[in-house]
């Protein structure tokens, strides 16, 4: 250990020889600082670092989750949209088919009605013709009898004979037709 002799300037000290006091003080001071820093600085900073890392990673995870959810929602919307479009086109087809069926039915009904009306008209025409033929026959008969009696000069009052003659006349008439 060196002595501190300051007045005597001539004394040359070797700077590589340490003071014992400084070795001890250095060791104590360093150990003291080490204990303080290890106990109440390093753990605090480490805790802050860990919390920061966690906050960042948590944020990233949260964002990823949100994105995933958004993608899922988009997919479900797209699916719904396409299913709605399919539904609409199906409804349209159905309506078209229904319209066509109704049209067809109406047409059939109208045709039936027309046929029915035509048939009725035919029947009534036939009946009237029959009636006309009958009345014509009677009239023609009377006229012919009257004509014939006038020609032969014989009054054919007898009803039975008269009608027989008329019938024969008409039969002849129809035959010759």
């Amino acid at each position, binding site marked *: 250990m*060196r*002595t*501190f002799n*300051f007045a005597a*300037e001539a*004394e*040359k*000290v*070797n*700077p*590589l*020889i*340490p*003071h*014992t*006091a*400084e*070795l001890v*003080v*250095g*060791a104590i*001071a*360093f150990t*003291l*600082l*080490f204990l*303080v*820093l*290890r106990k*109440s*600085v*390093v753990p*605090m*900073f*480490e*805790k*802050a*670092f860990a*919390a*920061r890392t966690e*906050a960042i990673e948590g944020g990233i995870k949260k964002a990823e989750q949100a994105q995933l959810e958004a993608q899922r929602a988009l997919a479900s919307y797209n699916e719904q949209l396409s299913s709605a479009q399919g539904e609409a086109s199906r409804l349209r087809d159905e309506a078209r088919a229904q319209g066509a069926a109704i049209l067809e039915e109406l047409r059939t009904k109208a045709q039936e009605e027309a046929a029915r009306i035509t048939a009725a008209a035919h029947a009534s025409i036939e009946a009237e013709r029959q009636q006309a033929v009958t009345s014509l026959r009677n009239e023609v008969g009377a006229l012919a009898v009257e004509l014939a009696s006038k020609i032969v000069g014989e009054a054919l009052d007898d009803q039975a004979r008269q009608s027989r003659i008329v019938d024969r006349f008409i039969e002849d008439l129809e035959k010759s037709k």
Partner: protein
Amino acid sequence: MINLHFSGEGFVPPSTNDFNLPPIFENIPWLTKPVLLVFLSVIVVSVFFVLSARKAAVVPSKLQFAGEGIYAFVRNDLARDVIGHDFMRFVPYLFTLFTFVLTNNLFGIVPFLQFPAMSHVGFPYVLALFSFFIFHYVGIRKQGLGKYLKDIAFMPGVPKAVYILLTPIEVATFFLVRPLTLSLRLFANMFAGHLLLLVFIMGGDYMVHDSHMIMKIFAPFSFTFGIVLTFFEFMVQCLQAYIFTLLTALYIAGALADEH
């Protein structure tokens, strides 16, 4: 103390004796300025980091940001990048080493303090001794005493004849050169830097007080150069704290590695 050098004739350059400061109190011989500065550095570093880490939060305050920056530098750039896996064990030691050395070095240019405690070789010796014991202890714990010593003395994968040359070199490196260079590098840098500042400041002071006019005219240049060198010293002081810590981390990493 500067006046001491005016007694004789001519300029007496500063010598190693200028580092030999008297005790502050006559009856307590061990309480010198460097001793006081070392204790002061412990208080300054402790207070600064405890305050900055006390309420360490995810979003840092300005103080936390400053303390955290230094801590993160030692933790990530020194401990993690050099030691790698399992580096957290050594972070408290390396962090203490860096801040302790840096603060004591910087005291060399802090006004009124103006003395780098590390220019007293006792302090670097102690720090180098700590590092020395730690890296050997780590190596022995990791590989066992026998294998650790054998790997140092007989480096694996080397032809047998080379051991004649290599073994003495390796043994000397691990047990003598490393602790010595670690401490002497720091000591010599701080010692020489302080001496250099003394030369220019005291030289300027001498020139101001000299009777020749020409000396008085050139005195400001000496002072200016002293100031320039102070900035240079700042750089050296930071660098030396970094190197001391980096080398300790490298030695630990080497001891942890399977093959040196």
